[in-house]
């Protein structure tokens, strides 16, 4: 079953903060976050491993609660360049190295 992300879409003004959530029904080893701009390939942002939290970028961070099989991506002081669709990719404990992508969250940052 595909991981579920929320919200489906969000509109922010520059400088505002946002949280994107990812929830899986499977036991997870890691969660990977990607951003995809229209017409482009997904770009890797960061990875959260079981038992740890990792910050990948200056104003973008994430958390991973492996007990709840949930991850959240935090975007602070948003910039226009943050616009795009964000996907979480989950690596299940029983399916190492394979990623299963969430439903996606479309983020639009306006001036």
């Amino acid at each position, binding site marked *: 079953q595909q991981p579920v992300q929320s919200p489906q879409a969000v509109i922010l003004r520059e400088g505002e903060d946002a949280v994107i959530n990812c929830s899986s029904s499977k036991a997870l080893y890691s969660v990977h976050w990607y951003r995809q701009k229209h017409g482009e390939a997904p770009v*890797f942002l960061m*990875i959260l*491993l079981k038992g740890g939290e990792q910050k990948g970028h200056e104003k973008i961070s994430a958390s991973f609660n492996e007990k709840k099989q949930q991850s959240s991506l935090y975007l602070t002081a948003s910039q226009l360049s943050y616009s795009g669709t964000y996907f979480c990719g989950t690596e299940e404990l029983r399916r190492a190295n*394979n*990623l*299963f992508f969430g439903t*996606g969250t479309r983020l639009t940052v306006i001036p």
Partner: protein
Amino acid sequence: SAVISQKPSRDICQRGTSLTIQCQVDSQVTMMFWYRQQPGQSLTLIATANQGSEATYESGFVIDKFPISRPNLTFSTLTVSNMSPEDSSIYLCSVGLAASKTQYFGPGTRLLVL
């Protein structure tokens, strides 16, 4: 990361025909994957391309429809066979890098089937 290229970048095909998509990486990688992304949708894993053995397909995808080759550690092909309009999608290859424990994507192939 790795530099990944795909050919063709886009194509328009007639139903009933087949198209082979190539994925080339600038370094040897153990893991290569093929995904499909239908318009406005998320990425769906088609298969893992295994070097020297048959690809491992996900539920809903079969070898007769999506044959995959992986002749070496830098190259793979995905063929979309006997195409129908429902096969219109973006097809992306990705590579898994052990050092970073994640996957990096190629630019994708945009396929339109008429």
